[in-house]
């Protein structure tokens, strides 16, 4: 689990997760969209309650790791300004077979969106902004 203000690449997250014992690696990248409800978006500012967010992310990953068929899992969440087109969240999960790994990746993302104290403020092309 990492919370970072630096750009995230998929490779960084997947490196070290791939090994010959695990035939399935699933990744999810959450990318800042350039529009929301039809409004052009230029960037999103992410704010975290870092100590608690790290704790919650670790709990979510630990829960995923005890389910059968899941070998490893990694989560990287960005904070600070993230430009449209850049990843704000990358999740990678590995295991022997795909089904459990797809499922675990999905559950991790769902839990992150529900429980982790991170907030986003959208900045629009017209210069306005708002917490969502």
């Amino acid at each position, binding site marked *: 689990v990492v919370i970072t203000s630096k750009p995230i690449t998929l490779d960084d997250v997947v490196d070290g997760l791939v090994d010959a014992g695990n035939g399935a690696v699933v990744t999810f990248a*959450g990318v800042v969209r350039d529009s929301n409800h039809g409004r052009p978006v230029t960037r999103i500012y*992410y*704010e*975290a*309650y870092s*100590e*608690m*967010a790290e*704790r919650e992310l670790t709990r979510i990953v630990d829960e995923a790791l005890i389910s059968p068929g899941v070998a490893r899992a990694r989560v990287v*969440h960005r904070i600070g300004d993230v430009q449209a087109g850049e990843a*704000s*969240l990358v999740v990678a999960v590995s295991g022997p077979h795909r089904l459990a790994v797809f499922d675990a990746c999905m559950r991790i*993302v769902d839990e*992150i*969106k*529900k*429980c*982790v*104290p*991170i*907030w*986003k*403020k959208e900045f629009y092309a017209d210069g306005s902004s708002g*917490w*969502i």
Partner: protein
Amino acid sequence: VRVHVLYFARLKDVMGTDGETLDLDAGARARDVLRVLETRPEWSGVKDLPLLLAVNEEVVDGNRALNDGDRLALLPPVSGG
């Protein structure tokens, strides 16, 4: 009891700070912090915002008794990912 109150996101903007220290009566509970803040004029900007309470990074209900040095975070609905 002396507690550190932490504000985030919209709440931080409205309160104009990321946190403050509050002195409360002995035996105060988490919800008593909200009672104090509700008397502030700026609170009207967030009175409809549903807030979760966390003490020392763990979600609690309003009944949670507060101890000296506790960090009480007021968490607006999260929107990470």
